[in-house]
């Protein structure tokens, strides 16, 4: 476990903090400092709403080391309302069948077990179906 690496990414993992390009207004996640749309420097922080829709999804059955306890689990590409897409696990699905286009929202959950027995777990964003008041 590379502690500084996880500390460095805490804003992204816990807060979905990316960037907005001051030149073309594109919203950027993950942050990359060079706007992927117009090529200009883009270092202005932008916090995403955490709302989006499922672009696609799959079910992980052969989980890699550190993820076995949750297997099988669903991973999706989520198209955020502001534009960019992120890869994340879906959670709190209950009996709900995942569908392309399904509205989802960000929550913070444990991502990975402590495989190296150093007392450190990795937390970060997952997405769950948007709660519907009518239910």
């Amino acid at each position, binding site marked *: 476990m590379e502690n500084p690496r996880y500390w460095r990414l805490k804003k992204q993992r816990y807060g979905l903090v990316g960037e907005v390009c001051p030149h073309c207004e594109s919203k950027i996640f993950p942050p990359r400092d060079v706007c992927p749309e117009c090529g200009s420097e883009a270092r202005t922080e932008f916090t995403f709403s955490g709302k989006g829709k499922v672009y696609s999804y799959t079910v*992980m059955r052969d989980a890699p*080391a550190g993820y076995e306890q949750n297997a099988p689990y669903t991973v999706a590409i989520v198209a955020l309302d502001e534009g960019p897409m*992120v*890869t994340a696990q879906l959670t709190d699905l209950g009996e709900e069948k995942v569908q392309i286009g399904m509205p989802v929202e960000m929550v913070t959950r444990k991502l990975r077990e402590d495989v190296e027995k150093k007392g450190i777990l990795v937390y970060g964003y997952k997405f769950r179906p948007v709660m519907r008041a009518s239910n």
Partner: protein
Amino acid sequence: MSDIVIAGIGQIPVGEHYTIGLREMGVRALVQALHDSGDLKPDALYIGNLLSSMISHQSNLGALFTDYARLGGIESYTAEAAGASGAAALRLGVLAIRSGQANTVAVLGVEKWSDLVRSEAEAAIMQEMDYDYESIPGLTSTGQAGLIMQRYLNDYDLPPDALNGFAMLAHANGAHNPCSIFKNQVSPESYARSGMLCDPLNMYDGATYADGAAALVLTRRDLLPKNFPHPVIRVSGSAASSDSLSWHDRHEPMAFNAAARAVSSAAEHAGILPGQVSLFELDDPFSIYAALTLEACGLADRGKAWQMARDGEFAIHGRLPILTMGGCLARGNPIGAKGIYQVAEAVTQLRGAAGANQVTNARSALTLSLGGPASTAIAHVLERE
């Protein structure tokens, strides 16, 4: 300047080689290829490998293999481009000869996979993706393919077994390849019964990772010995292109732009159209990548490659044979070595030595290796004189 030719090929069977390690595997393939070339003396060795530093705890493979294959202090190092590492090493060899820095180059693709248990090996190969933003959320390379297969089936409104034509044709061809890991045939029924890896991607849609080592010897046309025993195979095109590591950073994830760019540049370099080649050794770590490649390269309409595979258009005697020795799906996927297997297989076809799998009158071949989901794409065109 003189043309670049492939003078020698060597391959060990793809499989689980518990009794031999990284170095024995690599040396065996190298010795075979050098012998096949008429014992040419290389002045450089380029190596394609992805996982040796994680799985075998071994880096600096150039020093290891030049020493163990007794190549006498020549220039040597590794090219790494995930699953396209072997093809990257080949391209280094082509560039070295083309630039005049080398006359004869040995190229080795080698991968030791089977030393770790499954979950640890899966964790090792996750490094080919965007580690912070794909691997940490728990995705694997197989999961990446499952994600895009789901979207493909959805967008074109296809049944879950739409892609079965690729596994069926790969296994039909792999059954006659002495180096392939699987010799069994796949039927629509056995495909439909197969267990899921990453839904909707099933066990026949994902190639089995395995150990492998394959090698080539490249030289200048004018340096071939007078009594050279094989038909002469020229490398007439070589090109590489890149794209984002992850699907989530692409506007059109199904476009496979890097594959399209690498293939069109390599073909242009050779002065042919991709559809004119006798065979296409494309990259099929997952059946969906074969479909996306054919569609990106203009060899199938969007959303139609699966139908053409079912209709036999890509079979040995079809319109454009692909995966003629089984591809990754049946030969097995030796990751960093696979690009060299692909070229060795294409050379076997062009030499007319492919036995039951021989493509009639094979004159030219296209090869394409992918690193990740066409994050890296490296293509070569080979032609028989």
